[in-house]
């Protein structure tokens, strides 16, 4: 393809994704629309993520590797956006999978909607081994800029027109735990956002029980993102955000770990 300016830049921030990233990269290489560059930034992983990315980059000129230090997702994404040359920029997590027509169909949606700043699709939730799936539900709420203040329905796959960053500015490292929510709020204040109801992304759901800390930090960062949006929109005089947090406790049989 034309190496100087590809149609799409696909960005993957990768951190300790050694188990999954190979599968991720393969779904990118299988895209029906081939005019893209694929930028993967390793965020200072302590597993073999970087090695795997480098191996694939050697045999595929569309893949560019950034070996970064552990800077966090927003800083890493900003670095990749600055390097991206595509007219459209898509975001793929380091353990997730794209449907083969993801780029083709999303770019077609942009061409049908010349005003759109962002297109987002439906997604499937898949088990860690990618053997079981169910239809993702976050995108079922109808999108509107107002509704986005109380519900984050803009989930993967997300693609933006490169020029949106001129109006929204870069990703905010202060809101790493809710970087996507904050960014979508800012896009929604400047551009139409279009929903393409096609399941073009597989989101891997992991069993995690590290702590409630991460869940809490995500909710709290989302709260800050919405409060900032209320201020930008001049609504903070009339409305305040109420945040309720619910917990669900489950007792599960421990998995037997091999001795």
């Amino acid at each position: 393809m034309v190496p100087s300016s590809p149609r799409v830049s696909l960005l993957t921030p990768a951190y300790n994704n050694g188990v999954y990233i190979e599968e991720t990269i393969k779904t990118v290489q299988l895209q029906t629309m081939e005019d893209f560059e694929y930028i993967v930034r390793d965020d200072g992983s302590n597993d073999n993520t970087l090695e795997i990315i480098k191996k694939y980059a050697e045999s595929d000129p569309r893949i560019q590797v950034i070996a970064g230090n552990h800077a966090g997702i927003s800083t890493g994404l900003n670095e990749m956006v600055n390097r991206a040359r595509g007219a459209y920029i898509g975001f793929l997590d380091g353990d997730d999978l794209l449907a083969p027509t993801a780029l083709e169909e999303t770019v077609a949606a942009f061409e049908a909607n010349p005003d759109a700043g962002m297109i987002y699709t439906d997604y499937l939730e898949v088990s860690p081994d990618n053997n079981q799936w169910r239809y993702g539900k976050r995108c079922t709420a109808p999108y509107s800029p107002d509704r986005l203040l109380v519900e984050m329905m803009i989930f993967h796959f997300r693609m933006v027109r490169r020029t949106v960053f001129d109006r929204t500015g870069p990703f905010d490292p202060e809101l790493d735990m809710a970087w996507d929510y904050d960014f979508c709020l800012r896009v929604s204040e400047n551009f139409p956002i279009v929903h393409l109801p096609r399941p073009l992304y597989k989101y891997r759901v992991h069993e995690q029980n590290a702590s409630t800390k991460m869940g809490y930090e995500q909710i709290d960062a989302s709260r800050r993102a919405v409060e900032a949006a209320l201020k930008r929109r001049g609504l903070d005089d009339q409305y305040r955000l109420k945040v309720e947090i619910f917990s669900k406790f489950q007792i599960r049989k421990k998995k037997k770990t091999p001795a």
Partner: protein
Amino acid sequence: MNPEKPLVSVLTTAYNTEKYIGAAIESVLAQTMPDFEFVLRDDGSTDSTLEILEGYAKKDARIKIFSGPNTGMAAGTNELIKKARGTFIGLLDSDDLLAPTALEETVKVFQNNPSAGMVYTDHYDMAEDGTVRGLGFRCRIPYSKERLLIDMMTFHFRMFRRSTFDIVGLMDTSLEAAPDYDLCLRVSEQCRIVHLPRPLYCYRVHDKSISTSRRHEQINASKLAVERALKRRGLDRAYELFVQLSSKFTLVKRA
């Protein structure tokens, strides 16, 4: 009735609840079962709570008040438990209300269940202004010692046999955000808990949502309480606790 040996001690710790404490006290004084002492501790309030307590103590000899620095609910309740002289001990929050027959009906359950260490009732949720909204969701969950590991259904009104505290100990002040959950778990492991399905308590639900960080502390403390219970019960080798958080965002029009 021997005022030195009342049948029931009702215990309340109060912190800056001048708006509601009067109603709470009136609901105790209106009990159909008069053989009780009502012991309150002002937890270093900065409003007029202590003055209100003192006013009521002058009017009714069954009311005893203490005051001290702000130590939190768990430490304050422990202090009151040590002072209580009743055979049974009931706990009332300073912004809530007892139904008139709460003491009478709950004591009766103890008398019919001599092996019970704790009796809890149903409760109504009540709006800030006192409007009753309906039966609370917690008490609709059937009680079992095992289910208590994932659902805190042993909610208000709670009454304990005094000797229960000799067996399980007092409230754990290091779990300030969930001392009642921890206490109920410990009681459930040592004593029989009986549910009286009668709405004898009004629980005030405040509109002003607690801060998300305070809510996080609560959930963490509950998680810790359950993890300790798994350990005490010898279940921690085979089972583990999963906690999932979810959130609901709402825009509220400012007044």
